[in-house]
C-alpha cells in the first residue's frame, strides 16, 4: 500500500446539523489529500446519492432525521465493501460506536475534534482502522472473548478472538499506541493493523450470528 504517497481520497458526508456540517466540510476542503464529493443531510438522500457509486470514505452522523445512521452504515457496508465508513459521534456514546463498528463502520471521529485531526483520522482509516479508544477496545474484547467454558459452545474462530488478537486488544485497552503495541508484541505496526481489520470483521460476523442466536432464543426462527 502506498499510504505515504497518499493519492487523493474521495469523501462524502452525511450530517443533518448545519454547523457541524459546515465545520466538517471546511476541514475536509482544507486538506489537499481529500476531495469532498458530496454532502447529504438525510439517510434517504444518501442512499439515493450513492446509487452511481460510493466514495473512498463516507462520514456518517448516527443521529439522522429520517432513518438511523446505523442503517445507513449497514447498507453501505453491505453494498459497497470498498467504502470505508467513519461515524461521527459525541462523547460518551461508546455503545453506539460499537454498534456502528458491528454494522460495518471502520472507525469514528468525535464531533469536537480539531480540524487537522480529521485528515489523520481519515488517513488512519485508509490504513486499516482508526485508533480504538481503550474503552471501545475493552468492549470489543469483552464481546468477542472466547467463553471460559469452551466446551459449552462450539469454539468458532469466525466470531471469537484468537489469543494474539486478545493480546492486542488488551494492550490497546491499557492505553498503548499501535506503535507501542507492535513493539511490545514484537510485530510490525502493519501487522497490528491487519489484526485489527480481522477483529473488525469478526465483530460484524459476531453481531450477525448473535442476531440469529437471539432470534432463535426468542423463537423467531424455527
Amino acid at each position, binding site marked *: 500500500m502506498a499510504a505515504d504517497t497518499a493519492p487523493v481520497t474521495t469523501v462524502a458526508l452525511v450530517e443533518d446539523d448545519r454547523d457541524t456540517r459546515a465545520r466538517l466540510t471546511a476541514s475536509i476542503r482544507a486538506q489537499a489529500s481529500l476531495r469532498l464529493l458530496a454532502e447529504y443531510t438525510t439517510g434517504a438522500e444518501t442512499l439515493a446519492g450513492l446509487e452511481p457509486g460510493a466514495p473512498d470514505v463516507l462520514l456518517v452522523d448516527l443521529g439522522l432525521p429520517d432513518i438511523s445512521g446505523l442503517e445507513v452504515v449497514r447498507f453501505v457496508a453491505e453494498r459497497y465493501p470498498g467504502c470505508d465508513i467513519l461515524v461521527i459521534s459525541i*462523547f*460518551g456514546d*461508546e455503545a453506539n460506536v460499537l454498534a456502528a463498528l458491528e454494522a460495518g463502520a471502520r472507525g469514528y471521529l468525535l464531533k*469536537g475534534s*480539531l480540524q487537522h*485531526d480529521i485528515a489523520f483520522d481519515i488517513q488512519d482509516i485508509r490504513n486499516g482502522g482508526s485508533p480504538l*479508544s*481503550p*474503552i471501545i*477496545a*475493552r468492549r470489543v474484547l469483552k464481546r468477542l472473548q472466547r467463553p471460559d467454558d469452551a466446551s459449552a459452545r462450539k469454539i468458532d474462530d469466525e466470531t471469537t478472538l484468537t489469543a494474539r488478537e486478545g493480546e492486542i486488544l488488551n494492550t*490497546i*485497552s*491499557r*492505553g*498503548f*499506541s499501535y506503535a*507501542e503495541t507492535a513493539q511490545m508484541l514484537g510485530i510490525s505496526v502493519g501487522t497490528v493493523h491487519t489484526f485489527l481489520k480481522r477483529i473488525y470483521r469478526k465483530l460484524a460476523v459476531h453481531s450477525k450470528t448473535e442476531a440469529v442466536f437471539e432470534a432463535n432464543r426468542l423463537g423467531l426462527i424455527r
Partner: protein
Amino acid sequence: MTARGKAGAFAAGLFLALAAHAAQAQVQVQEPVVHVLDRADFVLSNERLLPPYARVPPPDDAPWQQVSLPDNWYLSHPGNTQVGWYRLAFELSPEQARFPHALYLPRNSARRMDFYFNGNWHSGNSGYGDPGARNWAPPLINTVPALNLKPGLNVLHIRVVAVPEVRQGLTRIYIAQGPAGRPLYEMRYATQITTLFMFSAAALLAGLLAAAFWLRERGDTTLPWFAVTALAWAVTAFPWLHSAFTPPALFHGPLAFAVRFAYAGPMLVLCLRVAGKRWPWTEAAMWAFTLTGFLLASVLSEDRQGSVITYWSATYLVALFALLVVLIRSEQRERRWAFWLLASALIVAVLLNAHDLAWWMGWIDYESFQLAHFHIPLVLFAIGATIIDRHFRAVAAVEQARVELEERVAQKAREIEANYARVQEAEHEKALARERQRIMADMHDGLGSSLIALLGAVQSGEASLPDVERRLHEALQELRLAVDALEPTDGDLGVILGNVRHRLRAAIESSGVRFHWEVGELPQLPSLTPKAVLAIQRVVLEALTNSLRHARARGVTVRTQVNGNWLQIGVSDDGIGFDEASVTPGRGLASVRQRARSLGGQVDIRSSRGAGTDVTLRLPLEHA
C-alpha cells in the same frame, strides 16, 4: 404400511395359504381313490342291548331303504335313539383284490362305528376314543387287509351309534388302494386337529405371558382379559388334544360343551375394552351368557345340547358382528395398522363362525371342515398386537412428555435467569443514575464555576486569548473525563488509565516530550464507583498536565506498580522541578491530595529544583 403391519399381513396370508392348500390337497389326491361310496342301504335296529358277539349285520330281507351319503342324522333321523345299519357295495377287480385297501372317512362323527367286510367284523371305532372327536371331528382311516376283500362285489356293513342332536351321522366312504388314502387323512387331520395343538399351546403361553405382564401392571384393563381368554381356551381345549389328557368319560359331555363358552365371553369383553368401550351391562350380560353355558353344560345331557349350541352359535355370530360394528364406529379418529388388523381378524371371525353355523344347521356339505376355531388365534393375535402397539405408544408418549417437561423446565430456568438479569440490570441502572446525578452536581460545581470564572475574566477583559483557549481546553477535558467515568469499565484500572492517555493524545503529541507509558496488567476493582474513577483520572490528569505544561520536561513516564495491597501510579518527569519548601501548596495540589484521600489513598509529591518531579498516587486494592 409399517413393518409390524406387514408382519401381521404376512401371518394372515400364511394362514390363508395353509387353508387354501388344505382344500386343494383333497382334489389332488383323488386319483388313487378306487371308490367314493355315496349311496347305501339303511335300516334301524333296536339292538343296543345286544352283547357285542350278537351284533351281526341285519339279514338281506330286513327293511333296507336306500339313502345317499353323507347322512347327517340331524336332518335324516332327528330324535332317533336306535342303532343304524348301513350296507354298501363296491366292485374290485381280481387284480385290485390282491392288495390291501384303506377305508377313509373325512369325519369320524359318531359315538361308535363298526365296520364289517363281507359279513365279517373288521374294526370298531369309538369316537370318544379319539380325543378330538367330540368337538372337532377328526378324520378316520382303517386299513383293510386283502384277506377281507374278494374279487368282484364286496359288501361293507357299518353299524352306527350316533346322536342326531349333535350332528352325528355317516360321511361318504372312500376306498383307496394301499397307502393311497393316507395323504387324504393326514391333510384333514393336520388341518382339523394339529392346528388346534398349535393354537392351544400358543394360547397357553400367550395367556401366561399376559398374566405375568398384568402382575407387573395391575392398572391395565385389557391385559387380564387377554390372559383369561387365552388361558380359558387353552385349558378347556387341552383335554381334547391327546387321549392321554382325556378326562374321565363322565366329564366328556360337560367339558366338550363348555369349551365354546370358556373363550367367548372373555374374548367379547376383551374386544370391547380394546375398542375403548367399558359397558358394565354388556359385560355383565356376557358373563351371564358364559356362566349359563357352563351351567347348562353340566346339567344337560348330550341329546339336549344341540339346541343350546344352535342358540349359542347364532348369538356368538351376532355378537361378533356387533363387535365389528362397534369397533369400526369407535375408532374413527385414528386408524392405525393395529385397528385394521383387529377389524380384519373380526371379519374373518364372523365369516368362519358363519360357515360353521351353516354347517351346524345342515345348510352346507356335511363333510365340510370345521373352521370356527381358527378365529381364536387370529383375534387373540390381533388384540395382542393392539395391546403391544398401545404399550409402545404409551412409552413413546411418556418419553415425549418427559422431553417436553425438561424443555419447559429449562425454559422456565432461562426465564428466571433473564428476569434475574433484568432485575440486576435495573439495580445497576439505578445505582448508575444516582452516581450520574452526583457527578452532574459535581460538574456543576467544578466545571460550572470555572466556566463562570472564565466568563467573568473574558467579560472584564482580563484574560488573554491563549489563556481563554487553555482554560476552555481544560474545561472540555474535564467534561470528557466526567462522561468517560460513567462508562461501565468494571473498575478495570488499566482501561481507566489508558483512557486518560487517550484523552491527552493530542496534548502529548504536540508537546514533543518522550512519553513512556509503563502500565502493566492491573487488577480490576469492580466496586469502584464512577466518582472514584473520575477522581483517579483527575489526579493522573493533573499530574500529567503539570509535567507537560510547566515542567519543560524532555521525558515523562507513567508507571504502575502493585505493592502488596497497594497500587502505585507514578507520574514522573525530568523537567525543571520545584522547591517543595518554597512552593506554597496551591489549589491544584490541595485538590489532588483531597481526591486521593477520598479514595482511601494518598499522594506523594517529590520534587526539587532542576531534578524533575515525581507524583505517586497510592490506592488500596481492597476497598473495605
